[in-house]
């Protein structure tokens, strides 16, 4: 095996130096005008994130810019999908102005850390991420080091149409299993309303992932553990809800109509929705999604009564990294600390609750509920928010996640049996591990 790394690296470095020069020029000419009058040098930072600017980020950078005339931050929104991430990564490698960027999945952060795009944050000693963000922060560490700071709490729970529950005489559940879910769903199902469904991307992460996070995705002998009994059990229960009791819309329908689960739920066409905090943005937008019912909240269901290693999907999200090639790392770090402790608050109305213990949680709650306090069952919300259940975070590589949802889909649409599904998933996962 010959090493051409040096050649490729040399070419790439030469190119990035070249482009760094040209972007230098661009920057200084752009800066020439505003800095003419003032004596101090103005630092311009660019912050890339996946949240649409008008949903909070613009307000955040405006607030910061007002307080810090010498460090001006511009927000750039990228769409958090394949092409959007590609765009971000090409921008970083080419030495374009990316100073801070948000990461939404661990595998992508790992790629960016190993390629030298993300700065190792341990060089800054004035902010203890573990202490501020709690034990879940560790799930974002790459090789025990932080290349990004997780900033928001991931909170997953089941959204309930409380008016429908009341009509059926059902209490708001505080601890339940998938069998209970099905029972509830049957009672809540009407001609115009589905009983229960999960948010589309969320179907990738199935309740068994909590167990596997404990048991490990890989067995001791180095082969895939995706054949564990709990996997088949969870799939079967979901399948039955789609095809036997028919309380859930089948995946084929969700996919072919790009069914907007949130809109379904908010327009009373779906009684219970397994989703998370991100629904708040639309739930708070009663102009576009008018509703007259109250929303209550329940924790995620366990698969079976016996599942003792159940973990609730959760942890932290929005891991913000500093570009290792940024010219203004110190300034970017200042912004990042401020963002995590107070800056990000305006996004709370969209469900982004700060993870930092020094953030104003009451204010966040107030923003989260807005003027709609009477439209939420606050008691049950506080219950799921203060849920002390152990959590886990999805960490499988993207390719394995895709293999899984490919094969699961085939089972859900009756294109292959459950046994074959498990067999294929295990085989393809093993093949994947052999290569990596």
């Amino acid at each position, binding site marked *: 095996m010959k090493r051409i*790394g040096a050649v490729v690296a040399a070419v790439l470095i030469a190119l990035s130096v070249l482009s760094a020069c040209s972007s230098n020029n661009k920057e200084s000419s752009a800066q020439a005008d505003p800095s003419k009058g003032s004596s101090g040098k103005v630092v311009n930072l660019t912050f890339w994130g996946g949240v649409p600017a008008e949903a909070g980020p613009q307000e955040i950078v405006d607030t910061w810019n007002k307080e810090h005339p010498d460090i001006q931050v511009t927000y750039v929104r990228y769409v958090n999908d394949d092409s959007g991430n590609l765009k971000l990564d090409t921008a970083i490698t080419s030495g374009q102005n990316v100073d801070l960027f948000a990461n939404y999945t661990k595998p992508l952060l790992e790629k960016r850390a190993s390629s030298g795009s993300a700065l190792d944050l341990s060089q800054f000693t004035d902010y203890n991420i573990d202490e501020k963000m709690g034990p879940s922060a560790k799930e974002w560490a790459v090789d025990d080091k932080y290349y990004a700071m997780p900033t928001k709490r991931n909170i997953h729970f089941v959204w309930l149409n409380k008016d429908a529950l009341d009509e059926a005489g059902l209490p708001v559940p505080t601890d339940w299993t998938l069998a209970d879910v099905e029972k509830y769903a049957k009672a809540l199902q009407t001609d115009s309303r589905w009983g229960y469904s999960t948010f589309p991307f969320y179907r990738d992460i199935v309740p068994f992932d909590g167990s596997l996070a404990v048991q490990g995705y890989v067995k001791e002998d180095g082969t895939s553990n995706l054949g564990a009994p709990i996997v088949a059990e969870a799939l079967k229960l979901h399948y039955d809800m789609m095809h036997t009791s028919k309380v859930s819309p089948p995946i084929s*329908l969700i996919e*072919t*109509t790009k069914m907007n689960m949130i809109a379904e739920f908010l327009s009373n066409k779906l009684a219970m929705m397994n989703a998370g905090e991100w629904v708040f943005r639309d739930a708070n937008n009663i102009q576009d999604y008018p509703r007259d019912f109250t929303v209550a909240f329940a924790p995620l269901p366990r698969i079976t009564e016996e599942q003792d290693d159940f973990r609730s999907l959760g942890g932290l999200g929005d891991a913000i990294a500093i570009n290792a090639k940024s010219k203004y790392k110190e300034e970017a770090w200042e912004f990042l600390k401020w963002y995590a402790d107070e800056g990000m608050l305006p996004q709370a109305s969209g469900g982004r609750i700060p993870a930092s213990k020094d953030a104003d949680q009451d204010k966040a709650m107030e923003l989260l509920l807005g003027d709609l306090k009477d439209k939420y069952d606050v008691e049950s919300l506080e219950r799921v928010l203060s849920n002390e259940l152990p959590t886990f975070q999805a960490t499988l590589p993207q390719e394995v996640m895709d293999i899984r949802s490919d094969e699961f889909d085939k089972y859900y649409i009756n*294109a292959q049996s459950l046994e074959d599904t498990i067999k294929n998933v295990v085989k393809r996962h093993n093949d994947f591990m052999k290569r990596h």
Partner: protein
Amino acid sequence: MLLILLGELHMKLNWMRRQQLVGYMFIAPNMIGVSCFIIIPALFSIILAFTNWEFPRLSADFVGMTNFSRLFQDEVFYQSLKNTLIFLGSVPISVGLGFLVAIVLNKSVYLKNMLRTMFFLPYITTGIAIAFVWMLIFQPVDGPVNTLLKSMGIVHPPGWLSSTSSAIFVFDIIWIWFLLGYNVIIYLAALQEVPSELLEASKIDGARRMHTIRYIIWPLVSPSTLFLLMTGFITSIKQMGIFQAITDGGPGDSTTVLSLFIYKTAFRYYDMGYASAISVILLLIIIVITAIQWFAQKKWVHYS
């Protein structure tokens, strides 16, 4: 005598050499651009096919044929190859349909301009919005297609995009629709070169008209047919956007075509080496398909 002859020969050679030079000069500007922006980048990615480069890392190892041997054991590859071939079936259908529509639109209708515009419209529209509409049209439960089929007495219409066996055919239908306007306009342009008395269809009776179309017009536009088939196959094989927008390869991998497979491998998994290897194979497939058409053209294409 000999001198004069030599002189003439010399002049002729000179003229030919000048002709050569002029020829090169005519193609040079485009050639340089195409080399810079297509050929050289393509050569670069052929080299990558023999490495394990992962974007955005800065180094890579030569791994020989590893990527290719992996490819030949990859079930997704064979599935995508099959899907790609099924998808290509839409090209000749759309070209044939395009010819018939162009013949009619050229002379035999009123409101010519309006009709032409309507036919061409699909070709000029922006992707994602219209992709979404197609999804709604083929919605298996209440979508207009299945509502129509049910009203015609078909109790179990296909699940279209929701079923692994029919999903790829939805793309064939969309693609026939999309390419049709393009085929029509190319044929219309070609028909302008056909003497108009041949096209005055209304003056000729039915049987003779069919004869004229089949044995006179069809051969006359055969260079365009060759062009449409060749470019149709090429653009279809490279097409990725509609798959990404509508199903992203699903359900399962029933609509994963080679180009989408490449895109995902390269830009979702950042596995550039493997993606390049798939591209090399894809390129070979296109070259073979095109070469067959190019060399078979002598049999049926007539240049004036």
